[in-house]
Every structure is written in structure tokens, then in C-alpha cells.
């Protein structure tokens, strides 16, 4: 891990100062080889850059070239997570009318196979005389994740920021995690995803974007850590016109749906938030606000629901 990290720093430094040109960077090819023989003439025009060590350096503009696929972060960093964070989600059931905009955005951004959904909206009705409601369900990013416990090869793992991710380059496709997850949120790529283009297929897989999905491996909601790194909200959160999803950091005690921001602890206290099937001891990172004083009647959602 340390070696990886060192070489990454070194690599970034070279990229910035030396003006190394990167051609198509597949995960296999060494970034140092590609384009090393290419000769570039200095233009004389300088730009100021901040190096990884925090120093301001000047570099000739000609040495900077756009990189088609800047390797995001290393696998070991993706496995460690974003330091100091503990991501949580709050889903307000009183706001959902089964529009499925969240689902569409998620499927689109993650290039999920057209038969599959990472985010499902269930019509829930527990008892005979209880009222039905719509329940959007993401991965709970359990703090005691049964799926991680059973994975034989550490292909699904828990990070220090609370997110549970999948390494599709390592997954052997045993589907034990699917049997273990009580929330049935995991899906499997039974064939090569029809939504993944040839071009996308050649890209190196990233655990944080979960793209590209690969045949014979599992997939699931990833809590969009790539968006969090960019200080943006997960796709489902920003797609919902009703502001059903709130996303945030437990350590900062704040969650937001883009339009409104709440103190997480207050929201949970005021609206009596709860966790799904917490009796199983999975300790979910997703909290639900009960479907009290609903914005829409349940029937409204039936128009969209196709089962």
C-alpha cells in the first residue's frame, strides 16, 4: 500500500512538473512508459501550479497535456475511504411518490444493466389495517455488513468513512454476499451489461464510481463516493424533485437534499427517524423518516409502478 502511495505521489509530481504525456491509460500499462519518447518543445508560456507537497511551481504550458482518463485514485485509497468522514443518508418517506427519478439517474450514471436496479422503490404495507407507503431503498451501508463478513476474497469491503464498496476486478462471482444481504439490494451482472459501451468497457474499473460494471460480478448502490470527493451530492439525491433523500456526514452532523439542510440529529429526533430491520444488528447508515403527514397519496405512485 505504501509503495502504491509513494508511486502515486511521484507520478502526480512528474505529471505536474515534468509534463509527462499520458496516452490511453489502461490499468495494466505503466503510466511512465506511455509517451515517454514523445518530444515536446517548450512554448515559453508559464503557468503556476500547486504541487502535491503544497508548493507553488511554474511549469511551461506546452508540458501540460489533457489526459483522456486521469486515473482517479489508487485501489488502496479507494479501499481506505475519505479520512474523517462518516457518510449517512436520511430518506423521508412522507415525500416519496414513486417517481423513480432517483432510480433512472442512478442507473444512467452507473451504466447499470437495463434489467437491474440498484435503487428500488417498494410499495410497503406491513399489516392488514396499516396504510401503504413507498419506500426507496438503497444499500444501507451497514456498519456491521453481513455481505462483507461472508465475502471470501475481500472484493466487497467496508471503508473508514462507512461506505461499503465492491471491487469488480476481484469479485469471483460466488454470490454469497447476495444471499447474506437481508435487504436484497445486491444485483448480479448475469451477462455483459447492455448499457456498457465498448469504449467504457476499456476503461479501468473504479470502486468509487462502480464503472464499468463487469459480467459475472455483483453490483450495488455505492453511495457515490466519487461525487462526495467532488463535494457533490449522489445522483439519486439531486434527481429527486421532491427532496426525499438527504445525504451528509455524521461527523459534521448535517444532511442535505440540495435545497434544504438539516442538523442530522435534530432531524432524526424531530421526525422519529429509524433504521430498516435494525433488529438484525446490521447497523445501517441509512435512516428513514416515517411516512407521516404525506405529501402525496399512495395511489399517485401506482401510475408509474410496473411491478
Amino acid at each position, binding site marked *: 500500500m505504501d509503495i502504491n502511495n509513494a508511486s502515486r505521489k511521484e507520478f502526480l509530481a512528474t505529471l505536474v512538473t515534468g509534463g509527462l504525456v499520458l496516452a490511453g491509460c489502461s490499468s495494466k500499462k505503466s503510466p511512465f512508459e506511455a509517451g515517454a519518447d514523445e518530444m515536446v518543445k517548450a512554448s515559453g508560456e508559464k503557468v503556476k501550479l500547486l504541487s502535491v507537497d503544497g508548493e507553488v511551481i511554474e511549469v511551461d504550458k506546452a508540458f501540460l497535456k489533457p489526459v483522456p482518463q486521469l486515473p482517479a485514485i489508487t485501489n488502496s485509497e479507494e479501499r481506505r475511504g475519505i479520512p474523517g468522514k462518516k457518510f449517512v443518508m436520511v430518506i423521508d418517506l412522507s415525500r416519496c411518490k414513486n417517481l423513480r427519478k432517483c432510480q433512472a439517474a442512478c442507473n444512467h450514471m452507473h451504466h447499470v444493466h437495463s434489467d437491474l*436496479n440498484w435503487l428500488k422503490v417498494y410499495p410497503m404495507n406491513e399489516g392488514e389495517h396499516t396504510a401503504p407507503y413507498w419506500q426507496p431503498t438503497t444499500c444501507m451501508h451497514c456498519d456491521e455488513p453481513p455481505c462483507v463478513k461472508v465475502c*471470501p476474497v*475481500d472484493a466487497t469491503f467496508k471503508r473508514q468513512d462507512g461506505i461499503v464498496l465492491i471491487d469488480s476486478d476481484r469479485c*469471483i462471482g460466488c454470490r454469497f454476499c447476495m444471499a447474506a444481504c437481508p435487504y436484497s439490494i445486491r444485483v448480479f451482472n448475469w451477462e455483459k451489461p447492455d448499457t456498457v459501451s465498448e469504449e467504457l468497457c476499456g476503461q479501468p474499473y473504479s470502486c468509487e464510481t462502480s464503472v464499468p460494471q463487469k459480467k*459475472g460480478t455483483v453490483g450495488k448502490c455505492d453511495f457515490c463516493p466519487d461525487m462526495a470527493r467532488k463535494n457533490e451530492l449522489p445522483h439519486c439525491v439531486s434527481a429527486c424533485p421532491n427532496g426525499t433523500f438527504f445525504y451528509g456526514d455524521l461527523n459534521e452532523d448535517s444532511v442535505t437534499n440540495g435545497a434544504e439542510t438539516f442538523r442530522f440529529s435534530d432531524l432524526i429526533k424531530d421526525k422519529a427517524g429509524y433504521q430498516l430491520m435494525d433488529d438484525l444488528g446490521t447497523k445501517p447508515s441509512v435512516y428513514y423518516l416515517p411516512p407521516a403527514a404525506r405529501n402525496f397519496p399512495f395511489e399517485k405512485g401506482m401510475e408509474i409502478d410496473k411491478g
Partner: protein
Amino acid sequence: MENSISINNDKKAANAPTFANGRRKPDALTDEQIISDLLPRKFGKLGMIWMGILVVICMVGVFAYFRQLKYGLVVTNMRDYASWGIYISNFVFFVAISLVGSLITAVLRLTGVHWSTPLTRIAEIIAVSAITFAAIIIIVDMGRPERFYNLFLFGRLQSPIIWDVTVITTYFFISLLLLYIPLLPDMKILLATKEKTKFYKLYRFMGSFWKGTHLQFRISKKAINILCIAIVPVAFSIHTVTSWLFATTYRPGWDSTNFGPYFISGAFLVGSGAVTVAMYVFRKYYNLKNYITYEHFDKMGKVTVMLALLYMYFNVNEFLVPAFKMKKPEEGFLDSLFIGSFAPLFWSAILGGMIIPIIVLLFKKGRHPFPMFIVGIMIVVGAWFKRYLIVTPTLLHPFLPMHNVPESYKHYFPSWEEWAIAMGSLAGALLVITIFARIFPIIPIQETLIEQHEKEHHK
């Protein structure tokens, strides 16, 4: 074997005395006759047809697997809810059946039971071939079989899959040794036969170092004893761990502390059923009436009844207790078994795989070879479907409703590729057993001779 009927003591006698029903007492057999009776034989016409059928079924299975490799697991009918299907039931079935090796060889041997000696090799080859195909079928089930090595590169000790890989490998090697070591003296006998078969080189390669000295016999006896003791905990582990693949999850129908013993008792039952079937077939087609006698069937029948009762007991525990409570997540699952879509299969497996065998085997006539053969088949088939019922109904009853998926995701019935691969693996296991019996004596010659001499000595 007590013999109340007079025995011809002349070892050279050509016509050994017979019982009214045509069975000969082995006591009257000469060494030469025993050896020539038990030597492996060329396939007859029936044998060739049998081999041909098995090979064809295997080839179809291989072709189906080729398609699966090419297109992915989409060729199966497994989907996100029924994420495991008949591959996994087949795996559990194979692991279960392989347990019989340890029962017949080790448990009976350690408890000083002698009548089972002629059956040890049958049991052991069933164990070895079943465990081999258990490993193969689990690789078939993987979405990424080419990454199998990840289990060794990144294996994490807390995953029950890693436990399973460890104990199954151990079991395989112990079983292989338990098959091989008792084979050594027989190999010497095979090498000493006058006509040289085409396997002569193989025998020489595998067993020429065996000279049959006292020291060698002592070492091999000791080794077998140690292996017999070692295999018992390993055998219990392989099936307990296999049951934990299910029991370590939260799912209704799997979330049970009863699963280990439930699986093990079921395994012993199906294993003894399989041995009975094999006994009958070898007895009939290899003419081993003198070596696998009515008495063997009778005793195996009694063992099987006991095991079936035991399995019954765990079934009552497994279903009656949850059914008494009818917890909400379990309700749909139990209903589907008792009165729903799985009910016909469930009740036939209970009736055909347990209750009818118990009733039949309680009668002395029921423990004759032919009824035993039929009962054995019922037990084995019932057990296969029971494994199907352990895997599928639970997966189709998740905690949250089945929703937002294509309609086909909500049901499971295996595709032709799945059937072909599952049947191919079963045919493959039978093929291994058949080929083994073609090359090696299926009844241990040396041990039969020793028993024979001891018996004569006794008199």
C-alpha cells in the same frame, strides 16, 4: 458370519455348497477362486452401453458449460432473487453423499464392525468422486471461474467459503489415501496374475513398491487407523461448514441453529442409500453374490432405517418449531413448502425419501437386495430434491417484497443448460466410479482373503 449349515472344508472343492436360494457361502471358497472372482473385468455389452450413455450426458454438460462461459450465467435461470440454483443444491448433494466414505470406512471400522469390510472400497470411491464433483460444480457456479486463484491470493479467514475450501480439500486427500493405501496389497495381487492386462503399467507405477512385508503391513495398518480417526472430524466439518453457508445468513428457512446436524444426518442417509444402490448393481453385474450377501443388505438396511429416523427427527425440529411460531418473515416460506407451490415436491421428498423407506426397511423382506435397491434410489432422488428445497424456496422469500425487477426474476426453474450441467456432473461422478471398478477390484481382495483365513482359523 455364523454358519449353521454344514460347510465343505475341502478348499479345492469345485462345487461349493449352496443355500437353497443359490447363494454360496464364501467360507467355502478357495483363495484362487476369490482372486479370480474379484479381479476387475472387461466391460460387457451392457457395460459399454452404460459407459456410452454416461459419456454422452457428460458431453452435453460440457457443451452447456461452454455456452455458459461464453454468454455468462445469463444462460441459467438464476436471477437476483434466486441467486443460487441447482448448481448449489447439486453441490450440497455431492458433499452429502461423499460423507458415506467416512461412515462406512471410518466410523464402522473404528467401532469394530467387520461385516462392512467388503463395502469399504465402494463407499470410498463414491466419496472421492462425489467430493471431486462437488469442487467442480462450485467452480461452475462462479460468475468468474478464471479468478478462482483469488481465493488463495486474497482469501479471508472469516468467510465460510474459505472454511469450506479448506475442509473439502483436506477431506479429498484423506479419502484418496483411504482409497489408495488398502489398494496396495491388491495391486500386488493384480501384478501377480498371469495374464497381463493393459493396466499392468499403471499397477506397477502405483504399487510396485509394495512387497507385502510385515513392516509394510504394520505401517499401512497404522496409517489407516490414523486416517480413520482423522477423517471423522473432517467429515463432520465439511458438511457442517456447508450448512453454514446457509445458516450464517439471516434468511427465513436458513437462519437455524439446527442446520449442522440436520445436514449431517441427511448426508449419512443419502450416502447409505447410494451405497445400497451401488452394492446391488455391482453384485448383479459383477457377479459378486458370494461377497455381497443378503446379510450385507440386511445390515445396511438396519443402518439406513436408523439414519432415516435420525434425519426425520431433525426434519421435525427444522420445520415444526418455526411452523408453531409462524414468524412473519418465515410465514410465506413455510406456506410455500407446506401448501404452496413447493408443496408437491416437499411432501414427495419427505414421503419418498424418508417415511416410505423407513416403513419398507422395517420388514425383513424389505431388506432383501431388490427392495433395498428401490428404496436406495428413492432415498437418493428424494435427497436431491430435498437439497433443491433447501436452496430455492428460501431465496424466493426475501424480507423485502420482490419488486422493480423483470417478471422472470420472481420465479426459478432451471434452464436446460443448468439441467445439462447438473446431470452431466452426476454422470461424471458415476463415470469415475465405473472406470475405477474397471481398473481396480471393487471388493478388497486382500482383506477378503484375510477375513477368510481368520474365519477358517476360527473353526
